[in-house]
């Protein structure tokens, strides 16, 4: 067994024999030509053939990957007809009296080199496009045959690099995965692999000469690992991963784009929990109806000073814009307890779970809080924002928060900075907040129940402590009654209630939550469709 690590382009699993795509020796010979006029005619004929082939590839890609991605072959046609490119080839044939193949190869190299040296990753990736059209033109000049796909077994294609036209030409039923030594995640090949849902790894450090066709291999797109000649155990794991992927795909096909509504017509919002801007991709991929918990800690952790207003504003705005009007609930700073930040100098506490954390820090050190609120209020102009405050236990705290929000709004008003006051709610994480839910509901727009902390504080059980396993019951009736009490308190004042803790994703409880009157469930992106399917199936 050999294990190689690369970069994943499409997260899927493939098991099967490898087929190494060895490029034919593409060394083009320089030949002296006497009749340059004849050579130019030969070039034009090859160019016409190339244009026709690119047109056919466009049509094929249009069927398989859609117009946006097929457009690359239109661009290839335009590049091929580009004046500078054609002039360079023509003048080289005429002035240096060389064969067309050589003139095309050299010109292609020059243009590819120009793109490769640009400071922009997108433009650098275009050098592969220039090489692709130049190679095709050379092949058409020399009458070289294309690869025959009809006789191939379904395999994992291993190559040094793949050009977009190679990728599209392949018979998709024969491709289990792509593995390339070179290539960029920005390349069209990478984009096409994603569109076609084919597991793909790039930048895998393989020595192609040493790999034999037919060797069994696994492509693990999640971990970006390529196993050559894997052990039985690895094959079993990969097969299990494939089954999970299959289940998810059928779920996607069935529930993507649907509303989460019970058969009797009750609508429940299924949102996603995320912890960084890049997670938004998973939110959209899994079709969540919004973001129910965006942990803002990622902005504060893993650094040595506080993030400034601009940095925060940009991150919040970006997420709101990407979600294009869907609700985004951002939770204000929730550090302390298990998430310590050295530069705040919070010090060690004997009982951090019950210590100086979350909203308590924000109310004690309002300058930190205000920076975040300013960024949030300004970002609220760019989408549907809601702010959620963690660890609130009393009405007084809510009033203190409101005072600070009003101050921030006044500052922004005076500075003439555009802002909006979004919906504001609190997390319900302590028995105190549950007991006071009716009073709290009067002052806020919504509740979101943080079941992890609520369970720990209700049962007085530390979940990290293995010795307490026999006492720990995540479905403890006390916790469920706490949830019911919270829902009743909120609904009495016409406010909505969600769950954003791990319990929200427990599909054995989904029916019960909906019956309790829960209005929103916020779960890990990968669980969104599972929860939706559960809701759609219930009465």
């Amino acid at each position, binding site marked *: 067994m050999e294990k190689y690590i690369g970069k994943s382009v499409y997260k899927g699993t493939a098991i099967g024999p490898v087929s190494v795509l060895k490029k034919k020796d593409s060394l083009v010979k320089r030949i002296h030509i006497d009749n340059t006029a004849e050579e130019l005619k030969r070039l034009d004929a090859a160019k016409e053939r190339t244009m026709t082939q690119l047109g056919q590839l466009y049509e094929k890609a249009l069927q398989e990957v859609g117009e946006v991605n097929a*457009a*690359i072959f*239109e*661009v290839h046609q*335009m*590049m091929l007809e*580009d*004046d*500078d*490119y054609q002039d360079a080839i023509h003048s080289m044939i005429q002035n240096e009296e060389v064969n067309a193949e050589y003139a095309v190869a050299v010109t292609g190299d020059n*243009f590819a080199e*120009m*793109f490769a040296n*640009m*400071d*922009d990753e*997108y*433009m650098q990736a*275009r050098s592969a*496009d*220039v090489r692709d059209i130049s190679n095709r033109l050379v092949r058409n000049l020399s009458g070289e045959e294309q690869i025959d796909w009809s006789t191939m077994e379904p395999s994992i294609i291993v190559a040094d690099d793949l050009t977009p036209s190679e990728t599209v030409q392949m018979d998709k039923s024969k491709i289990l995965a792509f593995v390339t030594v070179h290539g960029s995640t920005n390349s069209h090949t990478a984009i096409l692999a994603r569109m076609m849902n084919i597991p793909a790894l790039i930048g895998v450090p393989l020595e192609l000469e040493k790999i034999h066709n037919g060797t069994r291999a696994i492509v693990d797109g999640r971990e970006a690992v390529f196993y050559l000649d894997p052990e039985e155990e690895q094959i079993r794991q990969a097969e299990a991963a494939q089954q999970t992927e299959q289940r998810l795909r059928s779920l996607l096909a069935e529930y993507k784009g649907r509303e989460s509504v019970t058969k009797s017509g009750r609508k429940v919002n299924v949102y996603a929990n995320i912890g960084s801007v890049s997670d938004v991709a998973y939110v959209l991929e899994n079709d969540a109806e919004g973001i129910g918990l965006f942990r803002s800690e990622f902005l504060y952790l893993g650094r040595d000073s506080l993030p400034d207003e601009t940095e925060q504003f940009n991150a919040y705005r970006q997420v709101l814009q990407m979600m294009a009007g869907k609700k985004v609930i951002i939770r204000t700073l929730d550090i302390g307890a298990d998430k310590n930040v050295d530069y705040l100098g919070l010090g060690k506490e004997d009982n951090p779970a019950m210590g100086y954390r979350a909203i308590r820090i924000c109310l004690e050190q309002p300058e930190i809080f205000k920076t975040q609120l300013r960024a949030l209020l300004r970002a609220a102009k760019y989408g549907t924002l809601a702010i959620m405050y963690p660890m609130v236990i009393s009405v007084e705290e809510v009033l203190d928060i409101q005072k600070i929000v009003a101050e921030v709004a006044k500052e922004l008003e005076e500075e003439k900075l555009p802002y909006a006051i979004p919906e504001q709610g609190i997390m319900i994480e302590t028995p105190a907040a549950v007991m006071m839910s009716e009073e709290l509901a009067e002052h806020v727009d919504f509740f979101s129940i943080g079941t992890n902390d609520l369970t720990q504080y209700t049962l007085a059980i530390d979940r990290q402590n293995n010795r307490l396993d026999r006492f720990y019951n995540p479905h403890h009736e006390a916790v469920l009654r706490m949830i019911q009490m919270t829902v009743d308190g909120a609904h009495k004042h016409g406010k909505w209630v969600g769950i954003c803790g791990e319990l929200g994703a427990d599909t054995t409880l989904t029916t019960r939550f909906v019956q309790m009157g829960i209005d929103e469930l916020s779960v890990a992106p990968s669980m969104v469709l599972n929860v939706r399917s559960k809701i759609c199936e219930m009465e």
Partner: protein
Amino acid sequence: MKQFSYIIKDEIGLHARPAGLLAKEAKKYQSTVTLSCKGKSAAASKLMAIMGMGVKHGDNVEVTIEGADEDTAAAELQKFFRENL
């Protein structure tokens, strides 16, 4: 001579596809269409040259049109930029 400037709205900048469409568009007119940005300039009809300018999102592009049909060309090109870039 006609001239207008345009700030690129497209996230990836003047990338392959719109550059290709621009080259096609520019060839429709008798006038010469020149693009300048960040001290570089190129004929709008030359795809590779335009791409080589590395025009990014937010860059200000100057478009110069010179020739018999410059009035119509300028109006049409302005529309083209607004719709595609």
